[in-house]
């Protein structure tokens, strides 16, 4: 830094380029500014190539990528995945007769068509699709002769009242009411497990396409009263179709993304307007926005080249790259503008600015990159991808906004009027009017009285914030899909199911692993029954289902259906017989060789607290009751996976914060070479982090895959402000200025841009609040808060803390 100081001393106003020593500056500066045209041409070529690459970028989402693959529960699940039926990714299509009930031939015909169409939709695991039209959905009955059973839909079904009566009877004795048939008999479910990769083509499921195919089926078969549908049956009930499942959710998210692009544009426009209002220079505003957009283009092109996909979670990265780009670009532009205003030649001005701000710029960008890179530690592929793509984006910014932008500005310069204006504004300061009043206000924080009150206020806020933040929850806090708004189509569909079906779609499964044919050994059965009973005691558990339920039924069946024999027989022959019956009638209850069997718990919701309670009980049981012959492994099912994700997110949240702060502290130290300065820079960030958590509690936002990145980014981006402001202040102090003088200088040079950028970015992200995707709206709120609060923290707390910690910086310059 001391080297830099001397250089700043040697930056006289150079009006004519001929008076400027082209060999001055460091080697990087010379390479860049003495080959300006080459740099520009190279950038143009790179931009064209990457723009072509970016055009191939795919937006998709993957169920598997949302899963923390190394979490023990997930490992257990993935190891046994092929043996567990219907516990992975699936969708439920609910076909409702709004005008009657399901025992209506027209409804049944419509249902049959929908079933057939779903069955043929690529991605659906046909072997395990369930619905009343699927022959695999059966009824069992115990009579004095033993078992009887058959498909729920009679083979002889022909739409006649007799065959409908038979269907009614079969549904009654099949036990699917509340599961596949609504309790009010107005609707029924088609349950489709999905294949993540198509076994014939090896391609991964395209959720967007799949979701569109579902929408097509929905549109084709929906019949609302009074609206004629061409080609449909003349009479009969009105059909309404509800769809839930991860694939549909992602589909809706991706549809929402189209709107996100609008927000992106809105944010860019708002940023441009703010910057123009500040600079009044069209040239530089356009250049700044253009360079930031080029950065986004490069980033998109690079991630496409490296084979990444954009998903609903990493979609915010391009925006952040843009935002950070604007922030740094504005600093460069401001520097050049001030030099030009003083009369320096545009090329010289660009080089001076490069000299002054390249190092803090790189440091700040590295801090951002570290903030992103730390997310790599989180063992969830989508977050790793986000981390990777964002790091790429930030690295790109070093080229576009720290190199290309000054080079371009050295060609174009800034408008004379604007440059003069920026100096006039400076002279206006001294009159203590307008902007000067604001500077004056901020400068007071270097005085003892103001510093004490500012720090006291911050301390009080920190304590209040900390107390509130103790209630921070991990995971989803609402039922349904919290990614979407409560009144979204998806959540309304979900609410319909919750209301009309006794069994939810939030499944938590414990996996029983045994030696061959060990699943239906007496001890396995008894232990599974104990586990099921333990789980049923947990608040939030609706019921449990496993082979034990079926086995009790079959045991009773062996004894003429007497309910007194509805037990787990100690006699292994009886259990073996039951196992034989179950393998054909209930193949989803255990695998073919009897080594893997799920104990499935239906949960009333997937709130984090519910999951924690269930995991606690299941885990304790597994520890106490697992032996070599029967091991109980957590966990499968949507809720099991979510529970595992919550565990990972909870751990990651702490680890991530520790690493982000360590990285930021290290980078600050490298830049400032002063522990006191590090404290001054970092403490405002800590306050922001605490208040951000408190805000999440107040707004009912949980820490989850979607919000985790925001928390880390808040710190990474926040430190930018401190770096720019404090580095200038320190340089001035080391030149011998007093603290208030140095701060006065810093605030006029980089401080005002900090304020500009804070407001600009906040105004940009605040538009996200209107996103149909709730987690983006949440992110928007959190980011707006962080941008603004970090700015205020930097402008108010840095001088206040400096008063106590950096009041006596020794002058190192001559």
């Amino acid at each position, binding site marked *: 830094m001391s080297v830099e100081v001397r250089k700043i001393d040697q930056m006289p106003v150079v009006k004519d380029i001929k008076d400027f020593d082209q060999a001055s500056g460091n080697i990087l500066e010379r390479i860049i500014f003495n080959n300006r045209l080459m740099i520009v041409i190279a950038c143009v070529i790179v931009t064209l190539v990457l723009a072509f690459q970016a055009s191939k970028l795919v937006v998709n989402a993957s169920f598997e990528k949302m899963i923390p693959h190394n979490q023990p529960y997930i490992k257990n699940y993935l190891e046994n995945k092929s043996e567990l039926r219907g516990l992975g990714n699936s969708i439920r299509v609910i076909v409702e007769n709004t005008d009657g009930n399901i025992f209506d031939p027209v409804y049944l015909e419509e249902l049959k068509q929908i079933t057939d169409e779903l069955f043929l939709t690529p991605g659906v695991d046909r072997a395990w699709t369930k619905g009343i039209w699927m022959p695999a959905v059966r009824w069992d009955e115990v*009579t004095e002769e033993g078992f009887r059973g058959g498909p729920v839909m009679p083979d002889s079904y022909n739409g006649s009242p007799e065959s409908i009566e038979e269907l009614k009877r079969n549904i009654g004795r099949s036990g699917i009411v509340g599961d596949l048939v609504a309790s009010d008999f107005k609707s029924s479910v088609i349950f489709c497990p999905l294949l993540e990769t198509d076994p014939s083509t090896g391609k991964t499921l395209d959720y967007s396409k799949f979701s569109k195919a579902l929408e097509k089926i929905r549109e084709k078969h929906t019949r609302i009263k009074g609206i004629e549908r061409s080609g449909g049956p003349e009479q009969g009930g009105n059909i309404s179709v509800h769809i839930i499942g991860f694939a549909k959710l992602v589909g809706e998210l991706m549809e929402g993304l189209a709107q996100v692009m609008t927000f992106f544009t809105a944010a860019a426009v708002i940023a441009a307007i703010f910057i123009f209002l500040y600079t009044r220079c069209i040239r530089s505003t356009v250049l700044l926005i253009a360079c930031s957009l080029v950065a986004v283009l490069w980033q998109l092109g690079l991630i496409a080249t490296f084979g990444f996909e954009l998903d609903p979670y990493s979609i915010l990265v391009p925006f952040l790259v843009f935002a950070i780009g604007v922030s740094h670009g504005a600093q460069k532009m401001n520097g050049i503008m001030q030099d030009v205003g003083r009369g320096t030649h545009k090329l010289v001005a660009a080089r001076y600015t490069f000299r002054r701000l390249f190092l803090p710029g790189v440091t700040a960008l590295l801090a951002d990159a570290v903030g992103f890179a730390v997310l790599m530690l989180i063992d969830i592929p989508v977050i790793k991808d986000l981390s990777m793509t964002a790091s790429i984006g930030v690295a790109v910014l070093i080229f576009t906004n720290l190199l290309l932008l000054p080079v371009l500005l050295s060609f174009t310069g800034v408008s004379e009027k604007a440059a003069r204006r920026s100096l006039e504004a400076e002279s206006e300061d001294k009159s203590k009017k307008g902007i000067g009043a604001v500077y004056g206000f901020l400068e007071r924080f270097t005085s003892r009285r103001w510093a004490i009150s500012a720090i006291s206020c911050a301390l009080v806020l920190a304590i209040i914030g900390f107390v509130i933040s103790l209630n921070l929850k991990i995971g989803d806090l609402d039922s349904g899909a919290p990614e979407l708004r409560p009144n979204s189509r998806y959540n309304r569909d979900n609410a319909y199911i919750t209301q009309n079906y006794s069994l939810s779609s939030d499944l938590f499964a414990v996996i029983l692993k045994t030696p061959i044919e060990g699943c239906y050994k007496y001890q396995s059965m008894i232990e599974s029954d104990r586990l099921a*009973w333990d789980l049923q005691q947990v608040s939030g558990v609706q019921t449990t289902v496993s082979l034990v339920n079926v086995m009790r039924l079959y045991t009773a069946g062996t004894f003429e*259906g*007497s*309910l*007194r024999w509805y037990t*787990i027989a100690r*006699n292994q022959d009886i259990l073996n017989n039951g196992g034989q019956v179950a393998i054909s009638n209930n193949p989803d209850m255990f695998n073919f060789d009897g080594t893997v069997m799920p104990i499935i718990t239906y949960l009333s919701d997937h709130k984090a607290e519910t999951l924690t309670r269930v995991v606690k009980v299941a885990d304790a049981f597994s520890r106490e009751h697992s032996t070599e012959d029967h091991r109980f492994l957590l966990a499968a099912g949507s809720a099991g996976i979510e529970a595992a994700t919550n565990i990972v997110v909870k751990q990651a949240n702490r680890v991530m914060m520790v690493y982000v702060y360590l990285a930021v502290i290290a980078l600050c130290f490298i830049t400032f070479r002063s522990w006191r300065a590090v404290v001054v820079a970092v403490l405002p960030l800590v306050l922001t982090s605490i208040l951000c958590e408190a805000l999440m509690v107040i707004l009912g936002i949980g820490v989850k895959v979607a919000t985790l990145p925001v928390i880390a980014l808040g710190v990474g981006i926040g430190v930018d402000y401190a770096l720019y402001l404090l580095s200038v202040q320190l340089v001035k102090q080391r030149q011998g200025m007093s603290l208030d003088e140095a701060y006065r200088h810093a605030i006029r040079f980089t401080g005002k841009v900090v304020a500009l950028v804070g407001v600009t970015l906040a105004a940009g992200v605040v538009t996200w609040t209107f996103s149909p995707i709730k987690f983006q709206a949440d992110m928007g709120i959190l980011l707006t808060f962080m941008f603004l609060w970090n700015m205020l923290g930097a402008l108010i707390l840095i001088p206040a803390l400096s008063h106590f910690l950096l009041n006596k910086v020794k002058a190192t310059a001559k």
Partner: protein
Amino acid sequence: MCLRSVYKVIFAVAWMFFASVAHAGFQDVLDTPAMKSTLADKTFLNGIAIAGKRIVCVGWRGHIIYSDDRGKNWEQASVPVSSDLVAVYFPSPQQGWAVGHDGIVLHSTDAGTTWEKQLDGRSAIQVMAGYYAKCPAAGPSGDDVEAENPLSGIIERYGEEGADKPFLDVWFENETTGFIIGAFNLIFRTSDGGRNWEPWFDRTDNPELLHLYAIRPAGNDIFIVGEMGLILKLDRQAGRFRAMDTPYEGSFFGITAKPATVIVFGLRGNAFRSQDGGGTWEKIETGVPVGLTSGTVTEDGRIVLVSQGGHVIMSSDEGAHFTSFELEIPFPMNAVASLDKGTLVFVGPYGVQVVPINCD
């Protein structure tokens, strides 16, 4: 101490250690007390008894629940086992017995609040083996005594099979004397309140070792019904249960009786009535298509039968005719008891329900 005995001690300690480790993995339901649960009154229940003013129900996983306020609140009793329980009987308000799977027999002396184990499948077989080793007796079919005890083979087999045979019903005529019956012709009698159990395995006309499902008195007679139309009646002089002519080939699950009338019922709504002590039977048209599981007689003399499909039928004319009693929401029923003149208690897969019935 010689070296050998030291080895012995070491071996014994090691053996105990490994034996205990082996057992630590799985604890038998007979050695595991029933877990207390607030869901017990909403889960599978098999049997009901009225102990004075108290309702006592038994069911899965060793659940025994009782209510002193006509079913508004339920308490769960302390039970030393977690076997599925099937039946319960209280000959007096304080003394009661409950039986069930794994050959479990429980006894309560405090109206069902706490229970002690009197017998289980393991000890029951030992009692049988010990008893018949001492007194070689006639086979269950009443055949003549042969040179070789015909029971020894069966008892040896039962011993090998372990505690896999349930007791399916219990009935006591007073606080000391009663019977427990179960699968594969299991039957024991006690005359000292369950301290000692005497096997009556050889005192039934049941050569095929059919399951015995229910035992109840009718007047002075004591009837047992079971699988494949089995109807037995106690011959007090001979001290054995004699087979009666049966009107039906399917299984009977229960007996309900008034002093002059006995009704047996079972699979597919089949019910038969006898008014001459089981000599002749007439079929009752019940109108029920599924298994009748339990019956009771109300205080005002009405006979009630219930089914596993949730049918409730009543007769006010000694079982000659039955009419259906419609429940608002029918539910499968395993047992019924009459609490007082206007109230029935039902248990089934979904727990217990107390339902008022009209008293006209």
